């Protein structure tokens, strides 16, 4: 069990069915080539930990822990590119309004783009049901104890969706500003949602996520008259950790700023897909 966030990955459900993760992972990565230390450095000193050096050997591995995820992400990305799809990975803390934002975005995009959604949560089908009520395809991934989606889970979910050419895929990640920053899912970019009911210093507290995102949506702006939230400070903090980040202020509930977001999607579905 992860001491920080309860992360584990043995109980993943995709569309309510148990994912074949642990079986697939060995099969896909069984043919990677390795060099033994003996072949590279014959004069290597005897291992100091071994009481019986004759039966032990050192093997040089030099493999990144995220390499498996990156390989699967590249495969997802190749699929998106082959179909000229725009895939966006929506990340935020829990409660920033991602699902409401998606529902309103789908309503605004209807007739312009075919849309599909992959929903990530530890438990429940609630979010996928909310999306399906809009009439678009949605598949729920329940990560169980996991704190983030990984590229393998998304790849399995993609197999269950119909993805026409030039369509738009929203991946709503698990509400968590830490772990999802490190896991590439094959998306064109990450979009981080910050709501004005949170603190202006969230970008400084969770810099990895704001650094990893191309766009920040500042949500719930209709509530600003009732809050002491300093918009310019929040923007300055986001720019401090990521000088190139784009920012759109909006409210999914009132609709303010939604046009700018929909235009951003239209612009980027040409350039990023």
């Amino acid at each position: 069990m992860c001491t920080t966030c309860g992360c584990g990955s043995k109980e993943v459900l995709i569309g309510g069915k148990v994912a074949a993760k642990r079986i697939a992972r060995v099969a896909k990565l069984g043919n990677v080539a390795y060099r033994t230390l003996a072949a590279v450095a014959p004069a290597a000193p005897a291992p100091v930990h071994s009481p019986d050096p004759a039966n032990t050997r050192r093997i040089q591995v030099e493999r990144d822990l995220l390499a498996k995820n990156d390989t699967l992400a590249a495969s997802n990305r190749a699929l998106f590119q082959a179909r000229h799809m725009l895939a966006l990975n929506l990340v935020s803390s829990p409660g920033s309004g991602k699902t409401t934002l998606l529902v309103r975005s789908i309503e605004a995009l209807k007739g312009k783009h075919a849309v599909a959604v992959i929903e990530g949560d530890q438990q429940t089908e609630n979010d996928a049901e909310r999306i399906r009520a809009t009439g678009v395809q949605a598949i729920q991934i329940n990560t169980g104890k996991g704190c983030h989606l990984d590229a393998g889970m998304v790849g399995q979910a993609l197999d269950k969706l119909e993805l026409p050419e030039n369509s738009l895929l929203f991946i709503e990640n698990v509400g968590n500003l830490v772990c999802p920053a490190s896991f590439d899912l094959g998306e064109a970019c990450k979009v981080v949602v910050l709501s004005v009911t949170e603190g202006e210093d969230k970008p400084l507290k969770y810099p990895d996520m704001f650094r990893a995102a191309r766009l920040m949506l500042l949500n719930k702006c209709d509530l600003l008259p009732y809050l002491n939230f300093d918009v310019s400070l929040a923007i300055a903090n986001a720019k401090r950790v990521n000088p190139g980040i784009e920012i759109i202020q909006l409210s999914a509930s009132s609709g303010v700023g939604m046009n700018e977001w929909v235009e951003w999607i239209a612009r980027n579905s040409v350039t990023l897909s």
Partner: protein
Amino acid sequence: MHEMSLAESVLQIIEDTAHAQQFTHVRTVVLEIGALSAVEPEAMRFCFDAVTRGSMAEGAKLEIIEIPGTGWCMECGKSVTLNERYGLCPHCGDARVEITGGNELRVKDLEVE
């Protein structure tokens, strides 16, 4: 952060390597963890012990090489030490510091039998 998933990746790399290199038991695992990789070495040890239970790496010694964070300050034009991601230059306070080391998250080598 997600040390449990990362510990599972370590075990997977061990199992893949065992398949390719024909070994049955692991005595030592050497990991490189950068100071800016957002991974806590102590959490990693805890998760490594939990994940390797019942596997060929059960009881293996986990050696962690901690790699310090370094960056290149564009204002000073020199290499500086970084204690946090996106930290300011310790000399001039500028934020434009490019990370040059400390992102590592890697299985370096194994001692096996």
